């Protein structure tokens, strides 16, 4: 399982990372691995506002369709439109070109409450049993 040391992680397997004043989010390498080949990603509109934990989109693989949850609350400032035609980027480069949304966080403290890479790795190991 690949991890991004700069990112923080939610229990629902999304990652979040500061980029200037904004937070970039996507799904983790573990999430893409579990989903297998992603065939469709549904993302929100720019300007939509969500609370932490709200569903903001859907990711669909040949195995399952899963909701995507906001690791932190905030207003959507950009979505990765490239995923519309090449959803496989979320498989190939989940922490890079496979990013999903950028948001202006409403409460930066929410970011600090997320798991760091080591804690998330342990969380996944425990979940896998």
């Amino acid at each position, binding site marked *: 399982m690949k991890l991004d040391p700069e990112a923080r992680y939610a229990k629902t397997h999304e990652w979040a990372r500061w980029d200037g004043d904004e937070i970039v989010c996507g799904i983790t390498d573990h999430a893409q691995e579990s989903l*297998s*080949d992603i065939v469709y990603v549904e993302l929100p509109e720019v300007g939509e506002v969500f609370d932490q934990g709200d569903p903001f989109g859907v990711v669909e693989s*040949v*195995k399952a369709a*899963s909701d995507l949850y906001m690791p932190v609350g905030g207003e959507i400032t950009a979505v990765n439109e490239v995923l519309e035609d090449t959803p*496989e980027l979320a498989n190939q480069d989940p922490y890079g070109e496979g990013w999903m949304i950028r948001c202006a966080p409403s409460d930066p403290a929410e970011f600090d409450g997320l798991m760091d890479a080591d804690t998330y790795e342990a969380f996944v190991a425990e979940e896998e049993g």
Partner: protein
Amino acid sequence: MPEPLIFEISRPGRCAVALPEPDVRLSDLPGGLGRDDLPLPEVREVDLTRHYTHLSQMNYGVDTGFYPLGSCTMKYNPKINEEVARLSGFVHLHPYQDEETVQGALFLMYYLQEFLKEIGGFAAVSLQPAAGAHGELTGVLMMRAYHLDRGDAKRDVILVPDSAHGTNPASTTMCGLHVVEIPSDARGNVDLAALEAACEEHSDRLVGMMLTNPNTLGLFDEHVEEVTGLVHEHGGLMYGDGANMNALLGIARPGDLGFDVLHYNLHKTFSTPHGGGGPGSGPVGASERLADFLPAPIVAVDSERSDDEVEFYTFVNPPKSIGRVKAFYGHFGVMVKAYTYIRMLGPEGLRRVAEYAVLNANYVMSQIKEIYRVPYERTCMHEFVCEGHFPDAPDVRALDISKRLIDYGFHPPTNYFPLIVHEALMIEPTETESKETLDAFANALLRIAEEARTDPTLLHEAPHNAPVRRLDEVWAARNLILRWKPE
């Protein structure tokens, strides 16, 4: 080699039937209505017959082999059902006929309603819904109508366990309501603490709960009466997904367990062909509280037109009915087959169906569980879920195992569902299989587990013996081609 499409064997000018020259004057369609760009296939009768015969020979169905597709109850469909459904008195009916002329059909519908009431423990049944998910939609609409009828318009939350059928949250959303997911506990039951917390949190917004019991893990919820009690305490109603009724026939009645409304899958539990082989039928049973909201019409005895000798049957509308949910009276042909099945077995036979379905599932589980991990290992009901992967063969997945089963002559089980089991394989043998068939299937699974270690490529490239090899599902999902187009 795959059979070509009918369009690909088409040749200009060929036709199956040569019509004689018309002996009346031809009249053209009014201007602009005719079109000559329809690429309909042009084939001879013999090519047409061979084409569809080839396709039917490539088909795999419960009449050709074992079909352990979890939660679909692919039991054998006795041929007498077909005989009865083809009686000319049924086949030549028209739904606009006067009631007096269709008393036989209404008799059948009335007694099917009565049988389903008895089997499920309900006060009334409507046969209208077209299949299971339609029954769910109907049931949720009834629950919503019940609250609205009491002037309680703020209820908009339905609780759905994570072991429910995937259609449950979809039906909730279709009714404009919100889903709150309830986790399972370590034994695969609804987590009571989480349920209690959700009931407290959403108490005044609670429409009810949708529970599949046995659930999609094939487990009977050990606290089902606590679950229904909790939801009722908070003013909610209990919806039962009857897709897994095959495990309960003659043993437990959902109405007695506290369910207010439940759909039956006649096409699963009551042996009518489905899954590409025929339409479904999803009658809904309701408790006293919800009976008035059933979809219209239902069949009742018209006492004024009955006498001591003969009952007269008529359509009636329940007083607070949510209305029609289906044109005419539902899928009547399926009802005939289900009625026949119930009459052929009788109460004791139906109970044995459930007993053998449960026995067969437990037998297969016992044969493979040392090799295929069963995450919630309890006595299962009519189906069980195991994990289709092995720690010492990490590249092999449930999909590879499923595809390899095709080479052994078996239909694969349901895979990747329920989502709470890693690499899930959901196996439902049904009651109609012999021990020899169950052994052959279990042995195939055990051999595949060996192959996963010794020759994983064999699995990755499976199936080898099917008319087509591994289909590229990812490519197909990303490049939708929904109909044939001329080159």
